């Protein structure tokens, strides 16, 4: 049996997720041993239009992106969004709440008219996505888990419970107990609660769970003296395209 052909594409993003794949180091060879990478701008020269699995990083921010991602979708049997920009829109969506012209000028200066950008959005806003590897950046172990599941023809296990579950399994002190705010109770788990384990709080980079209790979140924020506006800002940091951020 020939190895599945994998192509890696990037859209608007920092390429940090591709870096995570490269950072698998020896592990990357094990993973790549199972597949044939045919397109990867970040790591190789050759390009091919024949692939089974497309890994897509970055958000869609202009009309041209749309055409490109649709063409990728047509060629790929399986399309996987990797990283917050691709799965939920990510940091790029912060600009959706600012004046488009101002943002364009701020970023591109006097070349602003060259770039016909629009509101940033996740890949799934344009084409159907078969699997998401959430996070900013992605968790390397989870990436490998998802890839293995896809190679097995099985639906990857992407948790639909909050980060608190990972946090308890990691044996962390709940940051709320330490008097700090945390997005963990409404944020999708799967990261192993890495930020809390390292002494930070959860910023919500994996997006909200399917049925977040926003009433409870607002109550929680109130307890920490955080205004509704600030709370919205925290959600918009990564999940600006999501329903709860509008």
């Amino acid at each position, binding site marked *: 049996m020939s190895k599945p052909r994998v192509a890696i594409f990037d859209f608007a993003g920092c390429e940090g997720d591709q870096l995570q794949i490269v950072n698998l180091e020896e592990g990357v060879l094990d993973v790549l041993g199972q597949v044939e990478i045919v397109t990867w701008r970040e790591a190789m020269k050759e390009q091919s239009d024949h692939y089974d699995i497309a890994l897509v990083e970055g958000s869609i921010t202009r009309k041209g992106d749309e055409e490109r991602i649709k063409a990728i979708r047509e060629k790929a049997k399986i399309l996987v969004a990797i990283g917050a920009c691709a799965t939920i829109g990510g940091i790029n969506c912060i600009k959706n709440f600012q004046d488009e012209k101002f943002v364009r000028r701020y970023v591109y200066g006097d070349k602003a008219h060259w770039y016909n950008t629009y509101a940033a959005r996740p890949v799934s806003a344009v084409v159907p996505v078969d699997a998401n590897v959430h996070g900013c950046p992605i968790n390397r172990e989870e990436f490998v888990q998802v890839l293995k599941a896809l190679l097995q*023809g099985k639906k990857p296990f992407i948790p639909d419970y909050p980060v608190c579950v990972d946090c308890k399994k990691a044996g962390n002190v709940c940051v709320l107990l330490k008097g700090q705010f945390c997005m963990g109770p409404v944020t999708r788990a799967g990261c192993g609660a890495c930020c809390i384990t390292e002494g930070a709080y959860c910023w919500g980079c994996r997006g909200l769970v399917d049925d977040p209790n926003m009433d409870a979140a607002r109550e929680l924020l109130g307890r920490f003296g955080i205004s509704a506006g600030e709370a919205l800002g925290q959600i918009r940091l990564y999940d600006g395209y999501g329903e709860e951020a509008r």
Partner: protein
Amino acid sequence: MGSPSPYLPGLATIMKIEEQTAMEKLFVVRPNDGKPLGHKPGQFVEVSVFGVGECPISVSSAPNKKADFEICVRRAGNVTNALHNLKAGDVIGIRGPYGTHFPVEDLKGKDLLFVAGGLGIVPLRSFINYVLERRKDYGRIIVLFGARTPADRLFKAEIASLARRPDLEYLETVDVGDASWKGNMGVITTLFPKFTIDPKKTYAIMVGPPVMYRFAIAAARAKGLADDHIIVSLERKMKCGLGKCGHCQMGPVYVCQEGPVFNFAAIKNLEEALS
């Protein structure tokens, strides 16, 4: 470990696969040790596709002396999808049989009213065939079968021969018919006015989707059946089959241990049983 792991499945080989509908396949399975499963009608097994996972599936064949048994599987999640992708000769894992069974002994001499909704025919088929192999041990037999559409009807050939039997009354319906369908249309309870029973001698054995029970039980009660003359088999999420993992719990009851077959009278006041 001093004692064997209760999670360790036995290996079994898929002998034959028969496509039933677009969603369901029937698998003939033979334990590699050649020993019969030793199940009773209504029990289930935990089926493993190694590397994918494990899930509970009811045994659809009647117990017999042969090692082969049958499971009918709907494509629903990762494990059942993987099962559908297997072929004859492939090896799977089997634990069990688990759970309670239909009271085949207690019901001897009684009239039996089988109510099968959709996939509910799968465990009931085990009992129906068991009864037919011992036909004279049981009284009158009525089988009601309801499917969503004609295309969703399972065991079509078997059902056809069942319908021709003189020693059994067979009624069926589909929720939604098609151009070729000449039979009854409507939910399964619409079949109830079409027959009469002696409620003292009759036991109803019902298996179907959760939504079916409330209506079918009401219809059975309207026919004069006492609650302890109604037997149901309930579906729940199960992970261990051993009364440990907690997923199948309804009130103090673990469905994998005290069920899946229950006398309705015993669970009718359980908050989560049939709501």
